[in-house]
C-alpha cells in the first residue's frame, strides 16, 4: 500500500473521526461532503464511541494473502453506541462463541502490513467487552 493512501485515513483509522449532518443529524463514517438523506453540506465533526454491539459476523477461513498469518479471523458489522455502523475484525474472541448482540469495544491493532519491507498499517478492531 502506498503510504499516502494509508496516511490520509489516519484520523478515521486511529481515532474514529466521523461527521454529523447539522441539518438532519445523520452521522457518517468516514466523513462525507453531502448528506445522503437531506443533501445538506453543513457538517460538524464527531468522534465515534468506542463500544457497541455485534449485528452480524462471519469467520474468514480463506483470507486475502496479506491476512494469512491472522487466519482464521472473525469479521463483524458492529453498531457503535450512538448508532454508527462499522465493519471490522473481532480479535481475541472465541470463534465458536460469537453471538449477534454481544458487546464489543474498540482496540488499536495492526491491521495489515505491506509485505516484508513496506509500511505497517494500523487501525481499529473490536474485542469482546
Amino acid at each position, binding site marked *: 500500500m502506498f503510504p499516502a493512501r494509508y496516511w490520509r485515513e489516519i484520523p478515521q483509522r486511529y481515532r474514529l473521526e466521523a461527521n454529523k449532518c447539522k441539518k438532519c443529524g445523520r452521522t457518517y463514517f468516514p466523513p462525507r461532503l453531502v448528506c445522503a438523506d437531506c443533501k445538506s453540506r453543513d457538517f460538524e465533526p464527531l468522534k465515534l464511541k468506542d463500544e457497541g454491539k455485534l449485528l452480524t459476523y462471519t469467520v474468514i477461513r480463506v483470507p486475502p494473502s496479506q491476512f494469512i*498469518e*491472522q487466519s482464521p479471523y472473525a469479521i463483524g458489522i458492529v453498531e457503535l453506541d450512538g448508532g454508527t455502523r462499522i465493519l471490522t475484525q473481532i480479535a*481475541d474472541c472465541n470463534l465458536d462463541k460469537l453471538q449477534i448482540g454481544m458487546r464489543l469495544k474498540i482496540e488499536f491493532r*495492526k491491521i495489515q502490513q505491506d509485505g516484508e519491507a513496506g509500511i505497517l498499517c*494500523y487501525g481499529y478492531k473490536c474485542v469482546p467487552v
Partner: protein
Amino acid sequence: MTGIVGYGAYIPRNRIKLEEIAKVWGADAPSYKRGLLLYEKSVPSPDQDTITMSVEATKSALKRANIPPEEIGAVYVGSESHPYAVKPSGTVLAEAIGATPEVHCADYEFACKAGSEAMFVCIGLVESGSVKYGLAVGADTSQGAPGDALEYSAAAGAAAFIFGKDNAIAKVHHTYSYMTDTPDFWRREYQFYPRHASRFTGEPAYFKHIIGAAKGIMDKARMKPEDFNYVIFHQPNGKFPQRVGKMLGFKKEQIEPGWLSPTLGNTYSGSSPMGLTSTFDISKPGDKILMVSYGSGAGSDAFILEVTERIDEIRDKAPKTRWMLDNNKTYIEYGTYAKYREKIRMGT
C-alpha cells in the same frame, strides 16, 4: 513537585505454558520452573506489537489522568522491539491518542531499561517546566531464539505513565541512575534474535547494577529498605527480583504486588514499569515505593515515589494489571506460538 498523574498497562490475552515450550526442546520443565520461577508467559497476537500495546496502555493512563491529550508535550516510547527500525513508534501513539502536532516525540532503546529511561526524561522535562505533561511508555514484544533459555521468559506487555505537576497520584521524590559498559546481552543490526552471555548476565550485570542503583538512591534519600511499603525490580524471570530484594534487605511482602514475572514472563522495557502499575493498583495514600529497572548493556534507573490521596479516585477507571494477568487468558500451543511470533518462514 512532579508526579505521575495517570498510569495504565496492557497485557495480550495469549499465554503459553513453560511445559509447552520445554516439550518441544526436550527440556526438563520442573527444574526450569524451580530454577527460574517461571510458569507461563504472555504472547502477542500477529496484530499486536509495541505500538498497539502502547496505545492501549496509554488509553488507560489517560482515563485515569483525565487530562486533554493535546496538553501532552512529550511522547516517549521505550522498547527494544520497535516495529520499525527507522520510523518512530511514538508518532503513531501520539496520533492515536490525539496529542499531535504540538508534541515532542522520541523512541528510546536501552534493552529492558528503555521504559524507565522514558520516565526519567519525562520527569526532567516536567520538573523544568518545558512541558505540562509528559507521556512515558515501556513496551515490548520480546523475542527469544527458539530453544534458547530466553524463549521461556520473553513476553509482551506495556505500561504507560503520564507525568505532570498537578493532581499527581504519586509524587516523584528522587531519581537516580547507575551505568557502566557491560556487554551481557545485545542484538546486532539485521539480527532477528538477541544474544546473551549466559551466567555473565547475573552477578556482574543484573545484580551489580540494581544493587548499585538501589543503594545509591536510598543513600541520596537517606532511606532504608524498611522505610518502603513496596519495591519493584526488573524481572527477567521470577527468581532474580526475589534474590536481589533479599540481598538488599527487602521482604517478600514488599516485592509481591509488583512481582508479575512468574505468570507474565519478562516484558523487557515493560517489566518493572508494569510492576509499578500493579503496585499502584493496591497501594494506599502515603505509601512509599522504590522502583529499580535494569537494562543490559548495562544500567539501572531508580525512582522513589510517594502515593497521594488521588489514587483512590482513579484506580478503578481502567483495568488493573493483575486482573489482566489473571483473566481472559487463551492458552496456545507451540505451533500457534511459532506462527504468531514469525518463527515460521512463510511463502510469498
